[in-house]
């Protein structure tokens, strides 16, 4: 039976979408220690902007780019208007602001014709037609594009955070804002940049997700929730963690759907299995697989 390799590959494919969505979380968390519950909504915004443009006859790729630019600005705007005031507030307050924002964006999307209903992209020529087959598992071009895009973006950001001065500074800001300011860092600019970058990746994730499984507000925004086990498993502040966490969750979901569902009456174990694994992993490594351990010295 070649079920296992097929499940693993399928897990990697869906996992790369998770990873891409998770990347946005990590970007924000890494520099500002804010966890963004509105990320799913930003993903949805990006996807719908791209969709609306294609509806108006704009070329798919151009529409995707414009959407990324738009969510780039949206991220910046959110940081500027809402999050900047929250610097220094307790973590629960900041979390709640983003929960509130998720609701606000939901509402705003409902003011457009895309709030209710389901839509799907007109697939661009490049992504139509036969994909490839791995271990007897056919993969569509969209899926391959998703994996490549995820790996590319994730690799780029890993390099950025570890090797570039700006990347290092962004991590420094997360560590100690006051100290970062003392050497001339504009903390505000760093935050704005982080949010903007997160917005950009969100649109990318949204478009890929839209291509793969259609556009509904609930489905796109729902990925915001799905991504939690991913980032927590990988470690909230680790780009590598986002990749590995995403792939792992994707694979775990598939393995449980592939094997566990046959045993558990009613099945649907993929909905909970990752969460159970998550709790077990956390009990062993409380800061995730790749997360930075909080340095606590008394």
């Amino acid at each position: 039976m070649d079920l296992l390799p097929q499940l693993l590959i399928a897990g990697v494919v869906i996992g790369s979408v998770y990873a891409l969505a998770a990347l946005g979380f990590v970007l924000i968390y890494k520099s500002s220690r804010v966890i963004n519950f509105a990320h799913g909504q930003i993903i949805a915004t990006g996807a719908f902007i791209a969709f609306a443009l294609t509806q108006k006859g704009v070329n798919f790729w151009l529409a995707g780019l414009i959407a990324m630019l738009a969510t780039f600005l949206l991220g910046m705007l959110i940081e500027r208007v809402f999050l900047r005031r929250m610097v220094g507030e307790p973590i629960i307050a900041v979390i709640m602001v983003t929960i509130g924002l998720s609701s606000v964006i939901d509402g705003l999307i409902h003011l457009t014709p895309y709030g209710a209903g389901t839509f799907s992209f007109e697939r661009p020529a490049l992504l139509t037609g036969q994909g490839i087959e791995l271990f007897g598992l056919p993969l569509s071009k969209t899926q391959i594009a998703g994996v490549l895009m995820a790996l590319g973006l994730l690799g780029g950001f890993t390099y950025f955070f570890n090797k570039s001065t700006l990347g290092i500074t962004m991590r420094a800001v997360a560590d100690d804002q006051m100290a970062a300011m003392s050497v001339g860092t504009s903390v505000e600019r760093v935050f704005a940049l982080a949010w903007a970058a997160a917005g950009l990746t969100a649109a990318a994730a949204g478009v890929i997700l839209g291509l793969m499984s259609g556009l509904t507000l609930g489905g796109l925004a729902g990925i915001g929730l799905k991504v939690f086990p991913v980032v927590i498993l990988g470690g909230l502040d680790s780009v590598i963690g986002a990749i590995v966490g995403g792939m792992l969750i994707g694979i775990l979901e598939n393995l449980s759907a592939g094997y566990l569902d046959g045993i558990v009456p009613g099945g649907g174990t993929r909905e909970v299995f990752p969460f159970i694994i998550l709790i077990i992993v956390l009990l062993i490594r409380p800061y995730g697989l790749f997360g930075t351990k909080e340095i606590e010295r008394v």
Partner: protein
Amino acid sequence: MPASRFTQTGNYRTRYAQDQTIFATYAEQLSLIVLIGLLLLLPLILPKTMLRDVNMIMIYAVAVIGLNITTGYTGLINIGQAAFMGVGAYATALAATRLNLPFFLAIPIGGIAGALVGTFVGLPSLRLKYLYLAVATLAFQIIFEWGVGHTPLLAQGGAISLPPVQVFGVKATFFNHNFVWYYLILPVLVVMGLLWRNVLRTKHGRSLIAVRDNDRAAAAMGINPGTAKIMAFMIGSFYAGIAGGLFAYFQKAVVIEDYGLHISIQLLAMAIVGGLGSLPGSFLGPLFIVTLDRLVGNGSQWLGAQNLFPAGVDVATALRPLSFGLAIVLFLMFEPRGLANWWRLSRLYFKKWPYKF
């Protein structure tokens, strides 16, 4: 010199025991009694549907006190309070339908079930902090919903109907249901509030706050942070369980949708808008959120009728989450201490009345 406690405006206490009293002055004590008296009369003047909202507000207030115990006072972010409510609701439903217990036993059983499960779910808090713990509670919420869906005993999330109750010979029917339950819920809320107020004055309450502020220092004070956290989860989910039991009866049946993630989020919003770690806030938060939702619901129905928006856009759909979200965001940005702070300020004002300062 008790008489002067009616009118004093400063701190003239002479014994430390007085420092522990809940009410600074008799005037305050008196005004609370008057308030409760008024509350007892409320159902006589309120329209029926509003009475239903008030009942709901009160039940949520019980759950929000519980949430405040874990999240507000102890700082353990809990995104699964609705699931704890659910545990209480299902336990109550089973006690009432399988064991045929009367409501005054079935509801406490819900509380105890909540506390037991809460204690268990709280165990990871021994190792996890902040967001990692928050996500563990989120995981519990999801596992709970899934688990109920796979348990035939719990009707797989479908309805388990509860029998109507009978108090002092009065049977709760469709037409007096809200009325009867008002007088059942109100005392529960008042007692639950008072109990917590008491705990706050003692070492147990303080130890929770200590763990929130600095768990290492708490340990150095001889407080076992683990025990304190588990205790917070236990008490917090006991409150949730009681609220769930009440909700089960109040809704006449238990269905899984009443205890979903969105309710957990709503409870958090109530706690925040009310003011985290504040008892009055635990009442004001639910009051505000439920009222806001009603107002927006009605307002947007009117707006929708004005045909200002293009077809395919439903104004209510948009305005409800929009206003809910905005309320949370604005509160956090401009009044992070929540409604409780307004309450405190207005109390200060009245205490000094008629003097301005």
